[in-house]
């Protein structure tokens, strides 16, 4: 099998946080390549640096050192505005806590993302299919508080995908969901990956959930300690 192009390329990535006078090394030399269209699961104990890795790949915080190229953009050198542009156009997040804007309906949450990305805010084509696939087409005029956790997470996924990002970063997307909803969301992510070729990185604590990925990366103490492929 010929090696497809990497959409994420990470070399010797380090990140330390200064809390008071103590410096915490959250990442201590991470190397990782993610080919376009891959569904990658990341597992590891609490505090091993999984979220930190996502925050750097997604441009929420700059790396301390090392090289990180995401969708053709060198995150270590682009600066604040460049990282904003990365979030605006290439990377979308799905969080454990859904993080929908509470005052807005599902529709307006999605429109806000489209607006920020500079895209037309009417729903058309692909987005309509995504909404159907997610099973929330009938819930668009509800506010987050009127929806179940599973529905909220599906809206969050719809919002993340509406802007057609190159990469979807899902940080424990099933962490706040019951088993049935977890399975539904995992199934949706796999479908999106298979049908649309969506590149997905997913952090999870659940080994069964991790099995949905093509490949599983294990982290410990700020390093990738093991990589395994799933059946």
């Amino acid at each position: 099998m010929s090696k497809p192009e990497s959409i994420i390329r990470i070399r010797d990535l380090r990140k330390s946080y200064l809390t008071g006078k103590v410096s915490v090394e959250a990442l201590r030399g991470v190397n990782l390549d993610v080919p376009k269209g891959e569904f990658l699961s990341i597992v590891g104990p609490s505090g091993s640096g999984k979220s930190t890795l996502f925050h750097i790949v997604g441009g929420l915080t700059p790396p301390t050192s090392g090289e990180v190229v995401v969708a053709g953009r060198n995150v270590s050198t682009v600066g604040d505005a460049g990282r904003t542009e990365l979030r605006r156009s290439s990377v979308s997040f799905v969080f454990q806590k859904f993080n929908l804007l509470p005052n807005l309906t599902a529709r307006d949450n999605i429109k806000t993302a489209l607006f920020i990305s500079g895209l037309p805010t009417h729903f058309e084509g692909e987005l309509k299919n995504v909404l159907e696939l997610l099973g929330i087409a009938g819930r668009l005029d509800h506010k987050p508080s009127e929806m179940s956790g599973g529905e909220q997470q599906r809206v969050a996924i719809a919002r993340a995908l509406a802007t057609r990002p190159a990469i979807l970063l899902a940080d424990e997307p099933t962490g706040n969901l019951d088993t049935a909803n977890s399975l539904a969301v995992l199934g949706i992510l796999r479908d999106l990956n298979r049908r649309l070729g969506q590149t997905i990185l997913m952090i999870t604590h659940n080994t069964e959930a991790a099995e949905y990925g093509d490949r599983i990366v294990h982290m410990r103490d700020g390093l990738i300690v093991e990589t395994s492929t799933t059946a």
Partner: protein
Amino acid sequence: MILKLVWENVRHKPVRTLLSILLVAVPVTLILTIIGLSIGFFEDSKRRSGGVGADVLLKPPNANVISFSTVTMPSKIVDVLAGEPHVVQAMGTVVNPTSGFLEALNGIDPVAFNKMSGGFRYEEGHNLEGPDDILIDSWYASQHKLHAGGKVNISNKEWHISGIVEPGKLGHLFVQMHTLQEMVGASGHVSQVFLKLDDPKNTAQVVSYLKAKYEGYPVLSMDELQALLSVDHIPVLKTFINVIIGLSVLIGFAVVSLSMYMAVLQRTREIGILKSLGATKAMVMGIILAEAFCIGLGGTVLGILLSYASRLAIQAFMPQAIVYTWWPIAGGIAMGAALLGALYPGMMAVRQDPIEALAYE
């Protein structure tokens, strides 16, 4: 879309928003009321000084030309002035401030006054006859619910109301000149002399002639007097207005600053979400400023409405004009203060670390 975000934010915290709008409205009302009162007062003064029918006014040395001054001069000067060229009538009056705000008793010779001004128009009663008679204009009468034939106590003296007259001539309260002269211990003295000329075209010539002849006596044409009746010529009032404007800026700034500071804290997480979606610094700042703009605009509109209410409440004491030209000024001050006040909270929102913001409970 930004408008929708702002609108939903505003709608979601109606109490905080309305309170902020109300607090911004207060200084707007304050400015409009102060300006309205000053302009209302001057318009009223102008109308009344114009109603005397004189062309030239002469005051005693050291007298302030536009305020009620207690300085007097011997009334002999009235006869002397009557003999000056072009002067067809000279009329002395005595002015004495009462305890009321910007209110004075005008001592007049009813016959001379009627001759110069063309006479009062009576709504009730008749002209001054007895020594304790007082004429009241209908504005003052309606404020104090007075009628002809009744009694009124002004400056520790009980007066008999002989008539109610139409407003617009010299003042609101008229008594016999002799009575007032005795009352204030200035028998044979007057506070000012009004001159009527053969032809108003001669005014400038007469004024300069009199100025030269009666050195030290302020002499001015009624047109000049009218021009002096404006805020610009009363430094204290101007300073006062500036202080009110300064306070308004401060209040508007503080209110919006506090309100938006709270809003930013309350919405830390939402701002983090917007940033995770790729919102630029300009957009985050824009949302905060847009909300401040709404508060400023709401405060301006409410402030203007409240200035009508204040006019209604103050009408009993003073005429308050509605000065449209000051609406945009007062509004601009409120909006400017609001936007300025939102700047720091906006900066806070812009600088917030999105990761910490997203972790915020």
